């Protein structure tokens, strides 16, 4: 595990503002990540950090600075530099832009996109923001109460969601175009996961629910070329 962590896969945390040590220059924090995983000389480390800073759009001279001298967006860039420090193959980004303003969010998403293209890394992007997913992802897995309920190609899922939860979710966000029709929402709340039942986890909040849904939990089945859905009634929903 130790061999894999950070070398093969790394993570960008949500709270960029709180994920850095406030009393150390950022340089040392990145160096720590590199030195913990590789045997490299001091000189090389410094050079690598400079390269990383350039890659994420920060002045290499800024590496001497402390976290409080950076803005929120810049701290997130430092976190990204840190995640890339050991050339990982997979980067997990957990709500990487949730705490940021729209313009800064755009800049960070753009950076993530270009780094992914340039370095050919795979990414898992975790977010509750559907438009960030629409902006960045190729494949999407929709989770509900601890299970994946729909999985597949982003274009197919956003265009024609087959799971009632995905459908409701997509209809609940206000859009920037078109007329302002009444928003749909999912009433009720997530089930109590300490007392699992044999029912479909979305049963209590689903408008398509029938008797079978309370008795048999649906499995994730492949329904079309690139999409899998866990719902007994996906066919019916698909026809609408």
């Amino acid at each position, binding site marked *: 595990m130790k061999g894999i962590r950070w070398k093969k896969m790394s993570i960008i945390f949500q709270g960029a503002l709180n994920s850095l040590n406030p009393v150390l220059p950022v340089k040392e924090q990145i160096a720590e990540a590199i030195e913990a995983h590789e045997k490299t000389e001091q000189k090389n480390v410094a050079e690598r950090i400079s390269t990383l800073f350039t890659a994420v759009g920060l002045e290499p001279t800024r590496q001497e600075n402390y976290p409080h001298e950076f803005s929120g967006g810049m701290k997130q860039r430092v976190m990204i530099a840190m995640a890339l420090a050991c050339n990982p193959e997979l980067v997990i980004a957990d709500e990487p832009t949730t705490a940021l303003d729209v*313009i800064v969010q*755009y800049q960070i998403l753009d950076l993530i996109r270009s780094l992914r293209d340039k370095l050919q890394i795979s990414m898992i992007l975790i977010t509750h923001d559907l*438009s960030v997913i*629409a902006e960045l*992802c190729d494949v999407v897995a929709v989770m509900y109460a601890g299970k994946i309920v729909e999985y597949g190609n982003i274009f197919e899922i956003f265009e024609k969601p087959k799971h009632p939860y995905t459908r409701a979710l997509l209809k609940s*966000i206000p859009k*920037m175009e078109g007329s302002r029709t009444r928003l749909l929402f*999912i009433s009720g709340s997530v089930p109590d996961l300490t007392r699992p039942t044999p029912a479909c986890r979305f049963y209590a909040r689903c408008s398509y629910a029938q008797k079978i849904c309370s008795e048999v939990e649906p499995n994730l089945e492949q329904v079309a070329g690139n999409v899998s859905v866990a719902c007994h009634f996906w066919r019916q929903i698909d026809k609408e």
Partner: protein
Amino acid sequence: MSAAEPLVVIRNIKKLFPVRRGLFDRSKGKLIHAVDGVDVEIRKGEVLSLVGESGCGKTTLARLILHLLDPTEGNITFDGRDLFSRNRAEMRKLRQQVQAVFQDPYASLDPKKTILQVVSEPLVVNGLSKDQLNLSKLVRESLTAVGLSPPELYMGKFPYELSGGQRQRVAIARAIVINPRLIVADEPVSMLDVSIRAEILMLMLDLKRDLNLTYVFITHDLAVARYVSDRMAVMYLGKIVEIGPAEEVCARPVHPYTRALLSALPSADPRTRHRGIQVKGEVPNAIQIPTGCRFRPRCLYAFEKCMTEPSLVKVGHDHYAACYLGQEIT
């Protein structure tokens, strides 16, 4: 949309905060220009949204409207009367007509009070309820109105027993229980799950219609602002840079900053992923406001004239922008 009568008139309001003197005291005597000269009217029955990035002064403006802060300069009138009146009785009366819903329903409800106590507090504080019976009747009505029914089920509970969405409903019930005319909602859905957001937004709009309310709705989410509001005001570094009918501002933005904000918005449709954003740099701090137009250092269209600060000019029907280019760049 006809220009309805104004409920609140805000004239050249300013709020400057002194920078707190730190250990090394380098910024002694400096001031943060949180709200730096805002003129705006809130019309009866409308939803006016204030949008902008963090630090643009939207929350400070809200706190001024709520009279939680005293302005450094300028004034606000509510229904023709001075909101910052020195007359305490008058102030009390005005305050009853303006209520707030805050962002974080986990922090805005006293954890040691039952829902009955939380919602009845405005009635008690303002001496509006003659007896316990009447008090609990009003609380029940208010809870029912926000969809927490039967109210008896919730009145004895404590905030920790409720979900985030339910708590925000309680916060709304508390705001409407004394029949205010204006509700200032500061990011009321930002802390909620996506699926619950729509529910609370719909509730707020339904209440507005049923109770004849006027809203000031603060949000950083332009799609939410467009959805709920009649008019939208875009703030940048303590000033309103563009204001107009919400759909119009989103469809035909005039100010380069509004355009930048809109261009930065991730699209909700993967087929229309877009690149190219119309802004450079980051928001400067509110201590040293750039001279001239405050957006000038980041603006792609800036020219000489922008060294003098522009004021809001009419650029369309009920649509104003503080930019010399006016309609030219559209």
